[in-house]
């Protein structure tokens, strides 16, 4: 078994209202020094060793993310 992490983020040129809401709120809470925030999704998958990287990519691209507006990164974190 392996733990696989997939991070899905809005593409850089795409509006990210969620990240902006956080970024705008931080100074009001007294936290300065954060110039930009982007918010995406974080998936943790428990994966059989038989599942290869190509399959993981397919899962991430075709299902966990929406390629029209999002990018993704796949990482195996342990096995």
């Amino acid at each position, binding site marked *: 078994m392996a733990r696989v992490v997939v991070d899905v983020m*809005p*593409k850089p*040129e*795409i*509006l*990210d*209202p969620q990240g*902006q*809401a956080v970024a*705008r709120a931080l100074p009001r809470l007294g936290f300065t020094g954060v110039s930009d925030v982007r918010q995406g999704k974080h998936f943790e998958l428990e994966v059989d060793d038989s599942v290869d990287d190509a399959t993981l990519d397919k899962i991430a691209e075709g299902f966990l993310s*929406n*390629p*029209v*507006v999002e990018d993704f990164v796949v990482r195996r974190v342990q096995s």
Partner: protein
Amino acid sequence: MTDTVDNAKNTPDQEQPYRELGLKDDEYARVREILGRRPTDAELAMYSVMWSEHCSYKSSKVHWRHWSANTTPEMKAKMLAGIGENAGVVDIGDGWAVTFKLESHNHPSYVEPYQGAATGVGGIVRDIMAMGARPLAVMDPLRFGAPDHPDTKRVLPGIVAGVGGYGNSLGLPNIGGEVVFDASYQGNPLVNALCVGAMRAEDLHLAHASGTGNKVILFGARTGLDGIGGVSVLASATFSGDEGGTESTLDPASGSSARKKLPAVQVGDPFTEKVLIECCLELFREGIVVGIQDLGGAGLSCATSELASAGDGGMRVELDKVPLRATGMTPAEVLSSESQERMCAVVKPSDVDAFMRVCAKWDVIATEIGEVTDGDHLVITWHGETVVDVPPRTVAHEGPMYERPIARPDYQDALVANGPEALPRPSTPDELRALVLRMAASPNLASRKWVTEQYDRYVRGGTVLAQPSDSGMIRVDEQTGRGVALATDCNARFVKLDPYTGTQLALAEAYRNVAVSGAEPLAVTNCLNFGSPEDPGVMWQFEQAVRGLAEGCKELGIPVTGGNVSFYNQTGTTAIHPTPVVGVLGVIDDVRRRIPTGIGAEAGETLLLLGDTHDEFGGSEWAHEVHGHLGGTPPRVDLAREKLLGQVLVAGSRDGMVTAAHDLSDGGLAQTLVETVLIGQTGARVFLDPDQDAFVQLFSESAGRVLVAVPRSEELRFTEMCKVRGLPVRRTGVVDPESNALEIQDIGVIPLTELREAWEGTLPKLFG
């Protein structure tokens, strides 16, 4: 390097990618002729986007003569603003003006269902705000491919979530819409959105930029790269479903290939739009807005050229002042960006401070980007250099206009000749009982609850009727109870068989849906969804539809106040069924007199069927669902009858004679009965006419019919009223709460639980 006007003068022969931007050779030549030189990159971006099908209506405009030819002075008198404004406005009395409009967001919703639908709602809401009105409610007529097709499973949940996600966050109740399945929409779903708003009649703000020296203020979201070229996708002749996601602008200015991969989708931020609404309303209340315009398709290109040409004609804009979200944007990109949640206002210099204060209160970014000038040119500068210098009318209003070839399609005769007469019909009671259940569970007739439960229908506290009622009804005036009712309809199969009659049937159904609620129909909007205008067969459908609608409205005496055209709805060369969605708005002087759709628990009330039933199955739901058949002619339409029905229902509501009413449409009497008992959660006993075929009585889709419930004490008075006015009426059943069943005499008893399971089970099974 920025392409300036001086540069354009000095390099007259520089090649420009106008074809990639969608301009034809002669259109480009016309731009050069207007300017007396080649356009700059920024000007080319403006002209190409504003002269696109979506913005210029170049293929449809010539047919608008049907509207004017069919609008009588009497009809005009009710309109405070009509075709040509952001949205039509009608006077509903008590000093109230109501504005409403339908718009399409079809192609973007195919590419990215959630965001496409969400920004569709956002766009139509800003249209209503641009009239100076408070948005009150939204509706969403939707059409999808076959219910069990994998692509429908991809797009439907996203579109529904997008309509809800945006509308719910704005605090606008969703009061109705449509969900229709037909394989003709595979690869090309239709997402139409309607918004209705109200204002005091004296507060009508039209978009114009008059008054030399007045300031132009852009407010709302920052401008980014998203949605650049969105307009070309919206109406692109080369739209291809398969690669829609990567379609993007070919930006003349940047020349960088990196930009070419930008997705042509816009991402909505409903929170920003919500504060923008409140901010606008406060600005209107303060009386500090001279003119206002929303930024929709074509972004600043559209807003600046339209504002300027609607005013005195002169405007100067410092484009580099526009707050940006991305780095390195070119003037052409800033002008064509379709970033959402932005508005543009014209404000007197003395009011600018007050304007900025209101924006600051709502945390809305506002920037003075230019001013009205006394010239007749729109001049746009970029860091001091002039990049646009054009007569604004030539951008906004004097685009090309085409008289496209029209030809009745070759297949039409064969389609009409292939009538439903030969289709096998059920005859035994068991077959008929089974068919009632099968039709109730069919995807097009089944309960829409799975969809509509995702929409807030309560917010703002003015919703008097919403789904699953025939029409949505909103209280406009809390003191007097004055309100409006709205319905949208279109049976595209009828339109396919006969576009003229089919469109009138859509009008008739929407009219009837409003009338059964007790409201008096007042005005019409539309969203004309068709295939490619370059196909003469499609243009024939289009012309027939416009003429049918215009002439129908004249007969009913209610004006078309506005609408929207969406062409190029097709997959490959196959066009969708022509789908002219018609929205009718009615007024009711006291919403407490509304007539509900479901029957109440009052035992012994009488069910009366108004209108005539003929053997009419061409294009019917039965032929479609049971036989997969489409052919013959649609039901006859009799608008005088519809009008009479409307009068009877409004009178019935005024005199409190009617306790429930539900029209007959898709699925015929059987479906109306199913919905009447299930919505009312009350059983009924029904007796059919022994002299007419039971199948025809139950499933024919003859127009001009309504089922009403009247208290027994009112039965005679109501029946007499119908007879006096020449409206056929037949006693057809009684309300029977004890039974908890729908009993159709000589056919069978269907317990409400069994009926409900059939009706409500389908959509969750498909999409849940």
